[in-house]
């Protein structure tokens, strides 16, 4: 490799590194909920999440929300019902979370 080529390579590498640093991606918040999320799945341009919450009287609120990957209003195919629902999974990539750990399967 000649000096000129080495300089060009160095410049390209420097530019590449700088571009990577400048373009360091920042995530976008697409949903906010006051309840703990326990599962998440995405596919076909949509994202679904599941919340699970037990209130002080022991009532369980387990609900599934579906929305566009771009955010916006969520539909709720499985709304919160105060029953003893132990479900924790969604399709595709599924994870279950407790206060101590998350298990994905």
């Amino acid at each position, binding site marked *: 490799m000649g000096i000129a080529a080495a300089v060009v390579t160095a410049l390209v590498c420097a530019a590449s590194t700088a571009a990577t640093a400048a*373009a360091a*991606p*920042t*995530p*976008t*918040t*697409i*949903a*906010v*909920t*006051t*309840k*703990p*999320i326990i*599962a*998440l*799945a*995405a*596919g*076909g*341009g*949509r*994202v*679904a*999440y*599941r*919340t699970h*919450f037990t209130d002080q009287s022991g009532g369980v609120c*387990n609900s*599934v929300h*579906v929305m566009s*990957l771009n*955010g916006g209003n969520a539909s709720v*195919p*499985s709304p919160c019902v105060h*029953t*003893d*629902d*132990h*479900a*924790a*999974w*969604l*399709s*595709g*990539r*599924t*994870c279950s*979370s407790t206060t101590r750990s*998350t*298990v*994905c*399967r």
Partner: protein
Amino acid sequence: MLVYDSVDRVPLNATHDGADTTLWRVGPGGKAKLATENYEITCSGTGIGPFAYGAGVAFTRTVMTEVDPGMECLLGSGGGDGVSRMTSATMRYVPAGSTTPVTISGAPGASRIAARWPALAIVPLRIPQPMGDNVTPPTRGTNQIESWNLRTQTRRCAASLAGVPTAVATNGVQIAAIVPTPQGTNLARLSAINCAHIGVLTLSRHVRPEIVAGRHTVVWVAGRSVMALSDHRVTRLYRGALVPHGLTLSNGRLVWWVTGSGGASRVLRLVLP
């Protein structure tokens, strides 16, 4: 298309509760019930374990059997609770547009599962496993991965690993898994076609059981960071103040959630570079 389960604990008789499990699919055509199973807790019955969507739904159906010598549940002899084990598990598939599950002959139930048409990656369940007082089936796995073809519903291959995978993903061509071993946590990559080992990468200690596989990139979570392997190079895509959970990938966009100390949660999206 979205698939989710519901598991309702309901009073069954004077001494036992039951677990009614339903698998649902929600899509443009509305909501459809794909499977229902029933388990008498600590006694016997059936349940639904891990499932995945890949141009249809592949799900684990478990069978629980009463194993106490007195057969308290069956005979009601001593008035005890009974003791139950998960004694078998199979894989079922509901093709897109159908609501009827068919058994994939010879396919094991999954402790971890991933699908990307036509590949189905299964970490087989360890059989048997005790149920205890649990409502849902246990998910201890074996140190293997089986690769299945959903189109032909036949097994392509199987591979033994250095540990029991805690997470598995596939992009249809490769299978990637997080595999804790005594020497460290590995990122193992296999061919989905013949299970040949493509590569093993030892990761940092704080790797979580989260992994997704895109066409050219494998992404996982280490500590509070989202990490990626692409073109034989490991990069940190993002590091936040909270631990990412539920990492998933769709159309080149990563999605995960974070939960704060108060329980409130946010869903975050990041375009894969």
